[in-house]
């Protein structure tokens, strides 16, 4: 079970990998701090750079960016009441009042330390559970893998954005994008429109950049024209007081532990993510702590939210490395990085590439240490990132997006597809409120579901009942039906009210 652990540790501490994780952290902090840009955007911008890289190096860079982006989402919220993404919104409730009281340094220092604690406890959960799950997962056949993919899709679609109808339709769009190209069983060209560049199907990078990076270019372009962020006042950030922060964390150690465990569990459930975990952690703080006034700068609120949202990151890696099922948009981008490196991600990954898998697990902790160092050193300069005009970021992100879309097939067609997907998704998300994550997860899980369904049908000689007679398969299909039925009934009750 622990084969390859030592090799994994050695891989993690190779100088090039340490440099990669530090570089990822810097990119993650810059991107995560900017309003509207999440960890998924940070990872998607780094994805094209991972071509030709060693899988472990690319994973460490992306995990560094993901961890730092989740932490830095709270910087803008704490200083200016503008969280970088939804995962920083819960921290903003307590962080911004602290800034108004002249305690921005306390709030930011607590954000970093609590994020580090959450990430570390999440890492321990990953370290202990992943090998066990991988042993069980080895016994799963195609019927079970199909059912797990269907369950993951149903959870993602219904929980992704509190709008189940749009979530399911987004998921459908992703599944259809995953169907483009030559059908493996019949050799039939599906939805290729007789375009030769479509025969190999949609490249993952096109879809990722199309739904994450390109709409942000449009959004930031609009911000540039309306000068929405040019009026930010100066906030003085005093030097951090690490001793006070550690004392406060020790005083609230049980809250930090509980919120971190909740975050890790939430992360392991597909379709949830850091923003939901942050609110659960914040609610846990409000429930358990009675000697602080919440809404007026309660430190416990920051501890609850930040430990939970950073514990999500190792949590999302549990289904990713044991089953090949990504739980969120960011982990789907990380999965794409593994697939692009030529790895066969699934239940056999742990046994076939144990050193690499252990290096990924350990790197989730190394990424924590890296963003702790980068974050503490850069805490006094946090306001500078927010004061850089968006006009400087738009051409950088646009260039990375265009180059990233061009590289996979070395053809301009990829750029056109990315731009088309970006514009289409911008319209869908702004008019019909379609969420992004279900599209990407549908795109990645669709081929997994279809290929396993076909394999199961061949194995069981077209006997559909096998999906319902095998207990694990039946359990996940029943859970999928339950998830959808629950949301439909809930929506129906809301409407009647």
């Amino acid at each position, binding site marked *: 079970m622990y084969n390859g652990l030592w090799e994994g540790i050695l891989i993690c501490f190779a100088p090039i990998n340490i440099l990669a994780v530090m570089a990822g952290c810097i990119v993650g902090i810059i991107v995560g701090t900017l309003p509207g840009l999440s960890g998924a955007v940070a990872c998607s911008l780094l994805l094209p750079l991972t071509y030709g890289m060693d899988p472990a190096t690319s994973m460490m860079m992306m995990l560094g960016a993901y961890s730092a982006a989740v932490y830095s989402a709270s910087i803008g919220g704490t200083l200016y009441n503008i969280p970088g993404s939804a995962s920083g919104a819960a921290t903003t409730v307590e962080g911004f009042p602290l800034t108004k009281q002249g305690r921005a340094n306390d709030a930011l220092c607590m954000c970093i330390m609590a994020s580090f604690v959450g990430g570390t406890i999440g890492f321990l959960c990953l370290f202990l559970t992943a090998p066990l799950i991988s042993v069980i997962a080895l016994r799963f056949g195609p019927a079970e893998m199909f059912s797990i993919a269907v369950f993951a899709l149903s959870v993602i*679609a219904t929980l992704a954005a509190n*709008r*189940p*109808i*749009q979530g*399911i*339709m987004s*998921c*459908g*769009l992703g*599944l*259809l994008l995953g*169907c483009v190209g030559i*059908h493996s*069983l*019949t050799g*039939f060209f*599906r*939805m290729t429109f007789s375009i030769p560049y479509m025969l190999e199907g949609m490249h993952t990078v096109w879809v990722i950049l199309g739904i994450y990076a390109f709409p942000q270019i449009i959004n930031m372009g609009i911000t540039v024209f309306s000068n929405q962020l040019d009026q930010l006042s100066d906030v003085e950030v005093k030097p951090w007081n690490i001793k006070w922060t550690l004392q406060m964390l020790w005083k609230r150690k049980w809250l930090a532990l509980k919120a971190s465990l909740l975050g890790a569990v939430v992360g392991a459930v597909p379709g949830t993510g850091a923003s939901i975990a942050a609110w659960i952690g914040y609610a846990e703080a409000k429930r358990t702590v009675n000697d602080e006034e919440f809404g007026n700068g309660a430190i416990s609120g920051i501890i609850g939210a930040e430990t939970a949202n950073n514990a999500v990151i190792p949590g999302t890696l549990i289904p990713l490395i044991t089953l090949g099922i990504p739980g969120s948009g960011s982990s789907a981008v990380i999965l794409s990085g593994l697939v692009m490196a030529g790895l066969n991600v699934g239940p056999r990954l742990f046994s076939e590439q144990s050193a690499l898998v252990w290096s990924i697990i350990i790197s989730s902790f190394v990424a924590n240490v890296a963003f702790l160092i980068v974050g503490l050193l850069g805490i006094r300069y946090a306001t500078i990132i927010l004061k850089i005009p968006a006009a400087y970021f738009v051409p950088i992100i646009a260039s990375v997006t265009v180059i990233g879309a061009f590289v996979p097939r070395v053809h301009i067609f990829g750029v056109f597809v990315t731009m088309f997907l970006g514009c289409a998704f911008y319209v869908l998300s702004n008019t*019909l*409120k379609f969420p992004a994550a279900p599209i990407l997860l549908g795109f990645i899980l*669709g081929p997994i*579901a*279809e290929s396993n*369904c*076909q394999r199961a049908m061949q194995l069981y000689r077209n006997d559909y009942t096998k999906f319902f007679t095998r207990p694990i398969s039946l359990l996940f299909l029943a859970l999928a039906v339950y998830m959808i039925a629950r949301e*439909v009934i809930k*929506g*129906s009750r809301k*409407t*009647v009210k």
Partner: protein
Amino acid sequence: MNYLLLGILGTLAGAGMYMWFSTFPESAAVFPKLIAISCFALPGVASVVKGIRDGDAARLSPDGFSKFAAGIKESNKSKGFWGTWALFAATVLYVVGTYLIGFFPSTALYFLAVLLGIYRMPIKGTLIYSISSVAFLYIFFAVIFHIPA
């Protein structure tokens, strides 16, 4: 958020896709057909029902429907709500009736129902409901029961 509009678009998209995927070889079409039905047509129907219950048709047109919306929301809420459902039921009966008693008698009865609906409801709302319901139900029935539309 206009769920009626989303539902109509979703259902039409699902139905259109289903018809397109029907031209694929059987084993290559199974999964896409499943997506068209489960991710577009059925959520589309659910969205239409939700939209009708929320009175979303009133918000479809930016100018002419403001009075209709006000009517439904304030003094005329129950009339708009039940009128909508009556028209929806009439549309279902119309599509079924087309196959049972023929196209012309069914159309005549449907127009009678629409006229009664107009008597009870503002004209633009009734027409929007009627046209969208017929389009949506025709394609939905064609997809689910393989009835040639």
